[in-house]
């Protein structure tokens, strides 16, 4: 029984499969959450042995600076918080797309720079580039290209093109979002204090109008 358990866990932690690292990451997360919770629990339990316990109705009241509370605290809160949440969703999705893109651009630029820097006359000139090429899925093992047929200059130019095209793609993607962002800004949705009048003027504009009307 124990050995069966041991074997199954061994297969989970086996280092050769691609799943292993994500599985062990989940295992780590579970373990850390468990140990963190155990830490909290231990502290509270030790405190329980030490601390006094003298309940009193006034101690169990909500603290509002000595006043008795009026009504429930589960109140409606401002719609502005939802606008913030909506803005967050739009931008956060955008930022998530930045990360894989940044890795590829970074690798392409590294490839370009090092390909330009390498002395072409040496026999093993492509060797320093192999790891980066492999990371980008361009190693000879993946049969997409054969390195021997490509000169260093071609690799460098290809990487350069990839980097520029990637940058322009991202520019297009971001600018579409930025149009929306500019619209929201103009409309006043980014202002925390604003009027809900149909004209959607910001409070600062309204205040300045009032100021100008005063004698």
């Amino acid at each position: 029984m124990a050995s069966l358990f041991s074997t199954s866990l061994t297969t989970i932690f086996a280092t050769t499969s691609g799943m292993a690292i994500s599985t062990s990451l989940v295992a780590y997360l579970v373990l850390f959450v468990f140990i963190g919770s155990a830490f909290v629990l231990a502290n509270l339990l030790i405190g329980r042995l030490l601390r006094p316990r003298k309940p009193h109705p006034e101690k169990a009241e909500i603290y509002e600076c000595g006043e008795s509370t009026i009504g429930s605290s589960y109140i409606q809160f401002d719609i502005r918080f939802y606008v913030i949440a909506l803005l967050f969703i739009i931008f956060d999705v955008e930022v998530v797309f930045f990360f894989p893109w940044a890795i590829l651009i970074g690798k392409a630029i590294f490839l370009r720079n090092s390909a330009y820097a390498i002395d072409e006359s040496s026999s093993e000139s492509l060797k320093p580039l192999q790891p980066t090429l492999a990371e980008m899925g361009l190693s000879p093992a993946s049969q997409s290209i054969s390195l021997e047929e490509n000169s260093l200059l071609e690799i460098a130019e290809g990487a350069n093109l990839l980097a520029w095209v990637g940058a322009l793609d991202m520019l297009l993607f971001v600018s579409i979002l930025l149009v929306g962002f500019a619209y929201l800004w103009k409309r006043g949705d980014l202002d925390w204090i604003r009027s809900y009048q149909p004209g959607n003027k910001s409070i600062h504009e309204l205040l300045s109008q009032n100021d100008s009307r005063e004698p």
Partner: protein
Amino acid sequence: MGQFFNNLLQDINAFLWGLAGYSSQEITTLAEDSWIGYLLAAIIQAALLLHVLAAGTVLFTWAERKVCGRIQDRLGPTRVGGKFGWLQSIADGIKLLCKEDLIPDEADSLLFRIAPYLSISASFAALIVLPFSDGWVAQQLNIGAFFILAIMGLEVFGVILAGYASGSKWSLYGAMREAAQVISYEIPLAMCVVVPVLLVGSMNLGTIANYQAGWFTNWLIFHDPFAFATFWIYFTCGIASVNRAPFDLAEAESELVAGFHTEYSGMRWSLLFMAEYGSMFTVSGLGVLLFLGAWYGPLPIFNSWTSGTESWYLAQMANLVGCLNFVLKSSLLVIVMIWVRWTLPRLRIDQVMTMCLKYCVPLSLIGLSGVLLWQLLAIPSLNDLAPARSDLTEHWAEKSSSPFVKDSQEKVDLFDGRNTQ
């Protein structure tokens, strides 16, 4: 059952031998296949990292009081534990442990109790991928930078839950403000993290750190003016995302009594704070890893010490110095956070939101595109002035190849390749 204990003993033995650096082929293969060895290693790592929260809080609260005292022209604590009052935080801890634990009648008792668990767990789990030195990391992930941002973002759930469950209006307002603020500042924070990822071409925090080996000119903050500016935007957003003054609206004592923790007392309250101090260290540590040269000192002294030798022990000594470097730099950033807290007045909620949406987001976008253009146009940077980076990196990485570290690096490489193909 006897067989099980026999296996267990073998595993422990193999693990301990592995820790001691004896890497015979037999021991290595045994350790690779033994889940108990991995579990023990993970538990030891977790126990060590727990000190960032536990001991870190003790030290940083003491530092906070001393710095605050000096800034306000006072002495700060001077009595407990000698001249500098350095046992003050421990005395406070004992006091908090002995305080009565109150839960209001109107509070949602279950959620009220769960909140500290959530905060601490999130703050603690972010440390899984935070490397303290070359290979000194619980789990070397190829998406480390992304993972740490994601897990740190979870801490806000504890705060929202604490505020919501308290049954107090102060707490609810505090929690809502915190939620709005933290999710808004995640955006510029993440955009600033993209900059080093773009410069190095990897999200693996170890790779980003090793890229900055050597002289201090290799640090990514000195790559170009845009990267320099990006670090300060990162740091500002970091302060906001861990809810520190001048962005501590969730616990604004002049308006909301104590915000989300108004109803908390004793140990439960201090656990919420432990999570906050832990996150402060994590944000500072991430900043150091991404921009400030990670565990490499300003001068490559220890690289020359270890180059040319094959001693695993010497490499671990260098790693220990690197670890101290990292902790020192991160603690300095935490001290800067404390300094900022006691210098600047608290912002209003509208100023906080304006600061984020109208300044930090556009500025971080400008920083990102500036760095991108700098790279595309191959403009020379300060990083290129330093002695060859790759030589130094390779030496440092070679030396620290204990059986366990080597194994984890191989795993990462495998996964890296699979992912991109």
